[in-house]
């Protein structure tokens, strides 16, 4: 017998049970209309799985969009484990946070932190982790509505998981970028998130960024290819970012690669994604591995197991 605990409980012969996850979306249509009237695009970056590079991508896309002249605000919606301020190198400049804005104890402009180099970029910092207890989707909508007046783009960095924090983050957006790594668990989680987002019915656009791709592993069939990922998710591809050690260096420095201080493939990819978000036609380059150099071949040879 199948070892499914629910198996024996299904007794009536003629019931229909459809459990496609639904999220409450009460007055969200009115909210989305208001966003559009401000000509503001509110984009949530989510993945389901943690550690795939949501926050890094948010920081870099924020910088890249700002460099293109777009007034951009990045909102840290990961209240439990906030990191966005660190990656942007703005931790020390935070005075007020989203918490104070919602409670009315400071003005919006007082909480927004302007980026050191890109003046078009502002950060809306997360409050303390206790925000998890009271913050709800309605708060997120009112926060984004306040921001919509003065920005072209709002990027919301969602927390990992599909629980309350995620639902809050998603409530404020009318577009979504799914961040996925070419590995089976990340794709599975992203698939679930895609289902949750489309069931909400308030998203105009859901796009996909495949992050941390290692072309040489893909070539050796050790890693899912972009086609494999798209085959399962069936979500339009917005961009591909290669695995890049420079990302870690830049994170530690608090200077995202998109600033363009170092030349790196990931930095270029972030810039391209930002241009595609703007609506430019930028072809997605084929990420075939460069011909292996002598050292690579030597490394391959050494790591080949001879049985």
């Amino acid at each position, binding site marked *: *017998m*199948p070892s499914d605990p629910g198996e024996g409980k*299904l007794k*009536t*012969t*003629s*019931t*229909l*049970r*459809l*459990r*496609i*996850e639904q999220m409450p979306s009460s007055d969200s249509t009115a909210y989305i209309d208001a966003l559009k009237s401000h000509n503001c695009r509110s984009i949530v970056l989510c993945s389901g799985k943690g550690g795939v590079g949501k926050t890094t991508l948010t920081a870099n896309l924020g910088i890249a969009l700002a460099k293109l002249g777009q007034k951009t605000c990045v909102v840290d919606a990961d209240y439990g484990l906030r990191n966005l301020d660190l990656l942007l190198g703005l931790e020390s400049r935070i005075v007020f946070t989203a918490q104070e804005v919602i409670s009315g104890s400071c003005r919006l402009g007082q909480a927004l932190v302007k980026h050191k180099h890109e003046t078009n970029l502002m950060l809306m910092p997360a409050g303390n982790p206790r925000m998890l207890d009271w913050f709800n989707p309605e708060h997120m909508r009112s926060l984004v509505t306040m921001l919509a007046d003065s920005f072209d783009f709002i990027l919301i960095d969602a927390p990992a998981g599909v629980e309350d924090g995620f639902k809050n983050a998603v409530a404020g957006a009318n577009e979504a970028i799914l961040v996925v790594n070419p590995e089976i668990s990340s794709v*599975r*989680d992203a*698939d*679930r998130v*895609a*289902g949750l987002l489309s069931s909400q019915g308030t998203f105009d656009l859901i796009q996909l960024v495949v992050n941390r791709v290692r072309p040489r592993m893909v070539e050796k069939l050790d890693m899912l290819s972009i086609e494999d990922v798209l085959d*399962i998710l*069936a979500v339009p591809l917005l961009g591909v970012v290669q695995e890049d050690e420079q990302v870690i260096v830049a994170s530690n420095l608090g200077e995202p690669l998109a600033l363009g201080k170092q030349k790196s493939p990931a930095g270029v990819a972030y810039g391209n994604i930002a241009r595609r978000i703007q609506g430019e036609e930028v072809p997605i380059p084929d990420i075939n591995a460069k011909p292996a150099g002598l050292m690579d071949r030597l490394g391959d040879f050494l790591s080949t197991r001879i049985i």
Partner: protein
Amino acid sequence: MGASFLQGSVAGAMCQLRLSGAGSRGPALLQVVEPVLPRLDRQHALELDCGDWLLSYMDLEHLQERLLLHNLNPVVLRSVEPRTIVAGAALGFMTQPWMPAPPAQQQPPEQFRDQEEKAYLYEGCLRSGDVLEHGATVVILGDVNPGARIRAAGDVIVWGRLRGMAHAGSQGNGAARIAALQLQPQQVRIASTTALGPGEHGPPGQPEQAVQRNGQIVIEAAKLPHVPMPNMRLRTPVAK
């Protein structure tokens, strides 16, 4: 509501006094039993089948007195109603809880009757974590992604790729099948048989189905089983 009498066999089986009628209670008991009393067989032990009558200690005592007057001694008492069994046990009967008829003989409730026949059509993609359950055949126009689950009492038919888990014939119908344009499920179940997915791609462009054969699930080219094929005449190529 009524009472009937079943003759015991020569082999020593008890003869039976059976009460019928759902939800009946004690006061009507003697009226019902009285007409059958003269027909009761005195040679065999008597078994009282009380169905789902709710009978009190007093009711059963009256009945026992009545039967004793006719030289009948009931020995065994069966009932679905627990309170009747308790009352019978108090009077010294051998009591046996009586199993209701298997559900297959019962008619489904009125509101489900026409729904039971109907297949359910779902348009769209079932993504990881989605669950679809239905009491008849399910037809899906779209893909079923890994991590999604479908459970249907009838067939599961996917006009797309099936890469999740599918359970056909969940109520025990072993003749149910799972068909898809591309059949690459993680796991398939038909009635109570479980099998892992094939793990490899089928021939491209060939819809496949999983069916149960001799207690095992096999995958084969999909057919249209329920549609009688018209008498088709194959076109013969014209000779040049």
